[in-house]
């Protein structure tokens, strides 16, 4: 299998089929990133297309001695952030559709009863609401960490910040998400109580 870096060299020599191969390799990843941040399919698809066109235009700037994946991910994040700033889009990350089937509670092996299912759905709604309330920076870094499954070093490369800054931001994002979830839970009259499913 030809490496990504070799393909980029072929593209710069005019081989457009090599770029087609790169699109096939990375379109799912890039679309996932964009969709998680944007939360709208059509807009995410348009931005994903824009990402690949930007990659094609700036491929001559790519240093083939480095990894291609962080480079294209950085372009995807920056393009999405730019789109967010342009549209002042309120991100609505939807976890509602298929959350149930993948909602794996590692700590609970109990067989869910109907009350548990209701509480689970309520918890998912609270988490979604909390995510929507987060600012773009916290949301993006959470997506990069948990959706893109990037470690702190990779996130620091993409965002072009130090690893310590990534760790601090990620910690603050988790605390902000937790704080938001608890506040919402408390607002429902369940102060100092966690869902029974937990």
């Amino acid at each position: 299998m030809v490496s990504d870096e070799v393909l980029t060299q072929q593209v710069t020599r005019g081989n457009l089929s090599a770029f087609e191969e790169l699109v096939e390799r990375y379109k799912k990843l890039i679309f996932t990133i964009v969709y998680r941040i944007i939360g709208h399919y059509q807009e995410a698809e348009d931005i994903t297309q824009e990402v690949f066109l930007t990659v094609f235009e700036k491929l001559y700037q790519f240093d083939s001695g480095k990894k291609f994946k962080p480079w294209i991910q950085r372009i995807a994040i920056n393009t999405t952030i730019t789109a967010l700033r342009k549209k002042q889009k309120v991100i609505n990350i939807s976890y509602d559709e298929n959350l149930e089937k993948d909602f794996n509670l590692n700590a609970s092996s109990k067989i869910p009863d109907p009350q548990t299912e209701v509480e689970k759905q309520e918890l998912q709604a609270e988490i979604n609401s909390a995510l929507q309330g987060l600012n773009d920076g916290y949301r993006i870094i959470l997506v990069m960490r948990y959706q893109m499954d990037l470690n702190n070093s990779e996130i620091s490369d993409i965002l072009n910040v130090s690893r310590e800054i990534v760790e601090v931001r990620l910690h603050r994002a988790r605390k902000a998400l937790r704080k938001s979830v608890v506040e919402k839970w408390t607002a429902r009259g369940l102060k100092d109580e966690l869902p029974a499913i937990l």
Partner: protein
Amino acid sequence: MNCQQFYKHLWDYADHNVPKSLEKTLDKHCLECENCARTYRLTVVENGVLQNKSDIPDLAEDFTARIMNTIYQNHNKAQLASLNNWKHFVKKISAITAPLMVVACLLLIFYFYGIPVNHDNTQIADITAESPPQKQSAGENTSQDIILSAADEIKPVNNTVPSPAVSASASDKTGNFRQDYETSAADSYDYINQTDEPSKPEPSRSNNSVFLPPDFADYPVPVNLSERYTASQTINTDEQELTIIYNIAATGENFSLQILKIDNSSPESPVLPEADVIQDMDLMSQSDINSSSDLPVNDQNINNRGNGIDAGTTDNTTNTAAAGNGTDSSADNPPAAETDTADSEKIPTADEELPEESQSKDNNPAAATVPIKKPSTDDENYEAATDENTSADIDIQDIQWEVTRNQKRYQITVSGSANLPPSQLRQISEEIRKSL
């Protein structure tokens, strides 16, 4: 481990990103502390929600194809854009170069087909700049000034008359026209125009046409004269007299055509120019005119004198005496001497300059040939210009007749130098007579 230490490692613990030993310690604390255990489970739920990718919809199957099509289109557009840029560049260049090419073609046409532009005026300026400083009194406008002003103003010029330098050199060839060039005062209304080199007359031009002053519009002047003769200079001293100098292209010789308006009150005695005016008519001597005025005036009366007359413009007194009937001498002719004293400061009298040999011939009309003298000691240009002719004897011959135009009578006098054969002068006169 207490709860605070547990919270410190909570997210890493939920991500399974802690060492095994620490993980066991954290597991033990979860079993001991229900609150921390629930917090841990909440964190795991959050991670599950954040890591959930199952809800990500699939891209359209033609997503890659659309991207590639877009890239192809952009690539073609880029190529077309570059092509269009090239076409636009060519259009721009064409828009700039086309007028330049047209102008260049016009200039080439003008150059090869003889439509003069500023080229001639530039020549005038250059020629006149090289011309010698002329002696002139204050307030007088010399011909040189007129030429220079004409060159500065770049006015369209009459192309039928040679440049003043050419006419001056042609005049110096016979030693006669220096004064024409030199003493064209404001009141003399001297029309001196220039043209291309007379040695290469262009067939398409009419070189023998004459640019007449307004007061001489009704004067009988030759029209459609042969192109062998080029009108080089037009001189009018007053409203009664017009003199045109012609240059014969083939031989380089000159002849003059004098048109003198005759007073109707005294038809037998035409109005004669004053002595100082005659200085401008170098081919004609006053004595000749005096003598010719005594002759019967008609078209058939051709008086070919052929007598030698001083070509110098300053020896009119001597010429008058010499070409007369032989009864007057320079010493015995006080009126003539008084006439010369008007220009005595500039032009020395013949008595002072003529050698004894010449003066001895003054009393002999048959021996009227007088060597050319330097009229002015400080006129070095004249000396240089007439260097070839200083030792040459130049004779003047006249042919004279009379014509009537608009109930006015004019005396026509054609004069040529001795180098001009009488037969040719007669032929010229006949041609002029027919063209009037």
